[in-house]
C-alpha cells in the first residue's frame, strides 16, 4: 500500500483525498497534539474554522479536556499502538452550546524516522445512527414494559430451536416456572409438552411464516409439581427480519380455563337437567317468553303421540278439557301478570284410553336480569289415580260418617232415656254420668259432621241453602247458645250490621266454630270478645281471644285442611283440624272473606266478612 502510494499517487491527489474525504481526518503532531492538519469534515465535526490549525488540540477544543480523548491521544503517542473507538460519545461546543456526538474513530501513531512524532485521527460521525439505535432501544424497552405488564401471557422465542428470549410474568406463571427460563429452549423448559402439539405448531410457523391462531386449546402443564389441564386461546405470530425471514415467534396466550370449565359445567348442568327431566315420570316442559313450548320430555311426546318437531305449534285446546282450558288460560294469565308460580288441576284427553286424565299442572316463571319473564318451566303430573283414590276416600268417609251416626243416634237416645230415668228415681249422681255420656256423644257427632262436611266440600257437593237473614240477629242467637255451654264470658259488641244473603245454618256453623276455637285455645283466659259491625258494603264479624296465639308463619295456614298449628302447647288441644277449613270454605263459597290476626302468647282475632244484601226490605 505504501509502495502504491509512493509510486502512483501524487501529493496533490493525496491532499485532495484528505480534504474531500467524507470522514474527519486530522494529524496532531508532538506531545501537545498540535493540529498540523485537519480536513473540512473534521473541522465541521469540531465546529471550528481552519484557524485552529497550528493550535494544540486541547487549546482548539478545550471542552474535551475532561473527556477520554486526551488520554487516548497520549496513549497512542506514547505507545505507538492504534486505538479504535466505536460509537464513542463526545461533547463538543458549537456556537456556545455543548452538543453530544458519537464517533467511530481510529487514532494511529505518525512515525517519522522510526520515531513517533504525532497521531493521525480518523473520525466518522455516527451520531444519527447511535441516536436511532437509542430510540430503537427505548422503543423496545417500552414495548417490553408493555408486554411485561400485559394481562396476556406473552413470550418471544428466537431461532428454530425456540430459545425463550422474553417471557412476561403472566407467561412465567402460566408455565409455573421462574425467570431462569430466559435463554433456554422452550421444549427443555416445558418437558411435559412433549407429545402435545405446541412445538410442532411453532416449528411450522417458523418454517412457513404463517401465524397460527387458536381458541380454547387444551394444554397440560406441570404446575406446583402436578400435571394440570388448562385451556388457552393463543396465537403464534412470526417475527421477521428486514428481509422477511422468520427469526422468531411472538406467543400471545390468554388463560380461558375458568371460562371453559364454567361452560363445561353449564353444559353438563344443562345435560344433567335434561337427563333428569327425561328420567322423571312427569311431563316436563319449558316455554319461551310468549308461552310457546320450547322443550318437552319424552313423556309429553308419548302422551300426545306427536313427532318432536310438531309440538311447538300444537294446539293444546284439542286435548285439554274445555272447562279446564279456560281455567288454565285464566290462571296462567294471572300468574304472568304477577310473575308467580301457578298450579292447576286439569284434564287432558288420553287418546289411547279414550278418556280424560287428571293432571296437576304446575309452572314457575324464570325472570331475566330486568325482572321480565324469559321462560316458564312446568310439569304435568298424572294425578288421575290420586283423584280417584281421593274420591273413593271421600265416598268412604261420607258413608262411614253417615253410618256412624246411626248407632250414635240410638246411643244418644239411650243416654237421654237413662238420664231421665235416673233423675226420676232420684239418682242424681248416675244421672249426671248419663248426661256427661250424652255430652260426649254431642262432641263425637260434631267431629263426624266435620268429616262429612269436608268430604262434601272436596267432592263439590256442599250445598248452600241461601236465604236473606239479619246477620246481627243470627250472631246474637248463636252467642247466646254458646254462652250457655261455656263458663268463658263472651263479650258481645254488636252494631246493626244489616241483611246478608247466605246459608243461615252454615254461617251459624262458622260463628260456632270461631267461638269454640277461641274458647279452646285460650284455656287461661275467661273472656272472648265478639264484635259485629258494618264495614263498607260488608258485614264484619270478629272473635278475639286472649289465648296462646300463633306465630306469623302459621297464620296463613290455619285455614288449610287438616292443618293444626304445631307447637308444644297446641299439641295438647283436641280436634281434627277441620273446623277452620270448613269455615273458610263456607265463607268463601258465600262470596265472603276470612282472615286472622294473631300475636304469639297474646291471642288471636279471627274475622270474616260477608257482602251486604242489596235488598234492605227483607
Amino acid at each position, binding site marked *: 500500500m505504501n509502495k502504491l502510494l509512493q509510486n502512483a499517487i501524487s501529493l496533490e491527489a493525496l491532499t485532495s483525498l484528505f480534504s474531500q474525504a467524507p470522514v474527519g481526518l486530522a494529524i496532531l503532531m508532538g506531545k501537545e497534539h498540535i493540529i498540523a492538519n485537519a480536513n473540512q469534515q473534521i473541522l465541521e465535526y469540531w465546529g471550528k474554522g481552519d484557524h485552529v490549525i497550528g493550535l494544540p488540540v486541547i487549546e482548539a477544543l478545550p471542552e474535551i479536556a475532561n473527556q477520554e480523548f486526551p488520554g487516548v491521544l497520549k496513549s497512542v503517542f506514547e505507545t505507538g499502538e492504534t486505538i479504535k473507538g466505536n460509537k464513542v460519545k463526545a461533547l463538543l461546543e458549537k456556537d456556545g452550546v455543548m452538543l453530544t456526538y458519537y464517533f467511530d474513530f481510529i487514532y494511529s501513531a505518525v512515525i517519522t524516522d522510526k520515531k513517533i512524532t504525532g497521531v493521525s485521527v480518523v473520525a466518522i460521525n455516527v451520531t444519527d445512527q447511535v441516536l436511532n439505535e437509542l430510540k430503537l432501544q427505548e422503543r423496545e424497552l417500552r414495548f417490553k414494559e408493555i408486554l411485561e405488564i400485559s394481562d396476556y401471557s406473552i413470550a418471544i422465542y428466537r431461532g428454530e430451536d425456540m430459545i425463550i428470549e422474553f417471557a412476561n410474568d403472566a407467561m412465567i406463571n402460566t408455565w409455573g416456572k421462574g425467570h431462569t427460563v430466559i435463554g433456554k429452549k422452550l421444549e427443555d423448559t416445558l418437558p411435559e409438552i412433549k407429545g402435545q402439539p405446541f412445538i410442532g405448531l411453532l416449528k411450522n410457523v417458523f418454517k412457513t411464516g404463517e401465524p397460527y391462531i387458536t381458541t380454547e386449546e387444551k394444554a397440560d402443564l406441570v404446575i406446583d409439581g402436578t400435571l394440570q389441564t388448562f385451556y388457552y386461546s393463543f396465537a403464534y405470530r412470526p417475527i421477521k427480519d428486514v428481509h422477511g425471514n422468520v427469526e422468531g415467534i411472538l406467543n400471545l396466550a390468554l388463560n380461558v380455563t375458568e371460562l371453559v370449565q364454567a361452560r363445561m359445567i353449564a353444559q353438563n348442568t344443562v345435560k344433567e337437567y335434561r337427563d333428569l327431566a327425561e328420567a322423571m315420570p312427569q311431563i316436563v316442559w319449558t316455554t319461551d317468553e310468549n308461552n310457546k313450548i320450547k322443550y318437552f320430555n319424552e313423556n309429553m311426546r308419548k302422551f300426545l303421540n306427536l313427532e318432536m318437531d310438531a309440538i311447538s305449534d300444537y294446539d293444546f285446546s284439542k286435548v285439554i278439557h274445555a272447562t279446564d282450558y279456560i281455567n288454565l288460560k285464566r290462571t296462567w294469565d294471572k300468574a304472568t301478570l304477577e310473575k308467580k308460580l301457578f298450579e292447576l288441576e286439569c284434564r287432558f284427553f288420553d287418546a289411547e284410553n279414550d278418556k280424560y286424565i287428571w293432571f296437576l299442572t304446575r309452572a314457575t316463571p324464570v325472570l331475566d336480569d330486568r325482572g321480565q319473564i324469559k321462560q316458564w318451566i312446568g310439569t304435568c303430573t298424572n294425578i288421575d289415580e290420586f283423584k280417584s283414590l281421593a274420591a273413593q276416600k271421600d265416598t268412604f268417609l261420607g258413608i262411614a*260418617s*253417615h253410618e256412624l*251416626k*246411626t*248407632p*250414635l*243416634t*240410638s*246411643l*244418644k*237416645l*239411650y243416654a*237421654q*232415656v237413662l238420664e*231421665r*230415668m235416673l233423675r226420676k228415681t232420684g239418682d242424681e249422681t248416675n244421672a249426671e254420668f248419663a248426661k256427661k255420656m250424652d255430652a260426649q*256423644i254431642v262432641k263425637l*257427632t260434631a267431629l263426624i*259432621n266435620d268429616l*262429612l262436611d269436608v268430604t*262434601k266440600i272436596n267432592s263439590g257437593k*256442599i*250445598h248452600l*241453602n241461601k236465604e236473606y237473614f239479619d246477620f246481627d240477629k243470627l250472631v246474637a242467637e248463636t252467642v247466646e247458645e254458646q254462652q250457655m255451654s261455656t263458663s268463658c264470658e263472651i263479650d258481645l259488641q254488636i252494631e246493626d250490621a244489616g241483611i246478608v244473603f247466605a246459608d243461615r*245454618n252454615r254461617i251459624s256453623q262458622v260463628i260456632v266454630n270461631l267461638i269454640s276455637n277461641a274458647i279452646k285455645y285460650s284455656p287461661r283466659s275467661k273472656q272472648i270478645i265478639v264484635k259485629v259491625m258494618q264495614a263498607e258494603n260488608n258485614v264484619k264479624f270478629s272473635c278475639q281471644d286472649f289465648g296462646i296465639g300463633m306465630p306469623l308463619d302459621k297464620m296463613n295456614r290455619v285455614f288449610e285442611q287438616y292443618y293444626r298449628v304445631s307447637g308444644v302447647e297446641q299439641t295438647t288441644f283436641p280436634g281434627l283440624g277441620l273446623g277452620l277449613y270448613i269455615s273458610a270454605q263456607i265463607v268463601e263459597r258465600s262470596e265472603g272473606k276470612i282472615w286472622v290476626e294473631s300475636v304469639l302468647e297474646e291471642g288471636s282475632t279471627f274475622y270474616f266478612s260477608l257482602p251486604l244484601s242489596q235488598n234492605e226490605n227483607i
Partner: protein
Amino acid sequence: MNSKKVVIVDDDNAILDSLKLMLHFEGFDVSTFCCRAEIIKFMEDSEKPHIIVLDMWLSGEDGREICRELKKNTETKDIPVIIMSASRGLNLSALECGANAFIAKPFEIDEIVKTLHHLTA
C-alpha cells in the same frame, strides 16, 4: 197424660227401641216399623196415628217416597210427617217431599218431643 199415637219408621232396631222407649217415657203411644210395606199395611189396617216419624234412608227404600205416598193418599195426607236423617243438608229435600219437619240425627230428645207436640197440637 199425653196419649198421642206416634208411628216411627226406621230400619235400625236400636233407634226404634230407644226412640220408642224415650217417647213412651214422654207419654206417647208408640208403634214402630222398619220398612215401607209394614207402615203402609199398618195405615190401611189400623187406627191412624197422630204423627209419623220417618227415617229418610230405609234399607233400599227412600223415606221421601213413602212420605209422598202418604201425602197423596186422602186418608193419610193430613197426618204430620217428620223426616229424620243423618244428612243435615237434606232438610230442604225433606220438606219438598211434603214432610212437615226435618230433624237431623243424632238429635236431642227435647227437640223431637217439642216438634211432636208442635205438630200434633
